[in-house]
């Protein structure tokens, strides 16, 4: 990306973390990783020409072979996320491809919608995540209801959030992207909600 964020919105709190546990709730800050989006007329066709797998419906995601995700937010709007545990250049490659096509005069290919400065990105994992989230989110996130690759654009702890099911090492997991500027508030809310399950930021 041209203008990566200087730091995570949680950076000033990261000294207040604890070691991960094998169950419960582990909250990992991914906000230092790239993330971007594409929107506008022609985006679906253009994006389909760039990636191996596209989501089947709005509020679904498609994971690529390298673990990166394309999430369909609705209409002609998509979110692109790399694999947090890989060394993906997924977002940079897409952005460069779009710039190349635009430079060559392509029309109707939508436009990039950078997300690094607008959305924080957390990975909330562990067996107790669905019950913890039930305290702060109205959407049913139980594993048998909210399957892998499912998405929900909803309100979590009174702020807008994008939730995407992404398990980690066989344990239930959610990507959560929400308002970057609300990071300080969100940290306290999530720490409080996770404390009941001996969880928290790791």
């Amino acid at each position: 990306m041209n203008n990566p964020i200087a730091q995570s919105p949680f950076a000033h709190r990261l000294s207040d973390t604890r070691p991960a546990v094998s169950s419960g709730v582990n909250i990992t800050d991914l906000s230092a990783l790239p993330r971007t989006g594409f929107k506008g007329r022609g985006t679906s066709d253009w994006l389909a020409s760039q990636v191996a797998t596209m989501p089947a419906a709005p509020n679904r995601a498609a994971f690529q072979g390298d673990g990166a995700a394309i999430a369909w937010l609705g209409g002609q709007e998509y979110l692109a996320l790399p694999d947090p545990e890989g060394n993906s250049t997924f977002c940079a490659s897409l952005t460069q491809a779009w710039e190349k096509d635009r430079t060559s005069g392509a029309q109707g290919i939508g436009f990039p919608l950078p997300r690094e400065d607008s959305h924080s990105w957390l990975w909330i994992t562990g067996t107790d995540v669905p019950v913890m989230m039930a305290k702060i989110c109205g959407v049913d996130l139980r594993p048998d209801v909210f399957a892998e690759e499912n998405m929900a654009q909803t309100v979590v702890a009174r702020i807008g959030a994008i939730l995407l099911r992404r398990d980690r090492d066989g344990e239930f997991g959610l990507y959560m992207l929400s308002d970057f500027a609300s990071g300080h508030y969100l940290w306290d809310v999530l720490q409080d909600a996770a404390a009941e399950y001996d969880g928290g930021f790791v």
Partner: protein
Amino acid sequence: MKLMACPLNGPRNISEFICHGEFHNQPVPENTSDKDWADYVWLADNAAGVVREWWCHTPTNYWFIAERNTMTDEILRTYPSDDLGQSKETRS
């Protein structure tokens, strides 16, 4: 929890939505009198009964149409604004 069925996102807490008022077809500006334009912009029917309204799902900023009974606050139907098609209405 009162639920509303968003055409894009499915059933959600009503607190995720904002009502943006009655739906009315926009008059054609070139063919509309100042009075009719002002009526469209400023006046509401406030009908008692089933009305069509603009609603927005705020986390996604998705706008859609809801049919709601203003006497019972029952939401009867929700659908994308594209489904309005060429439907016409008249205002009393």
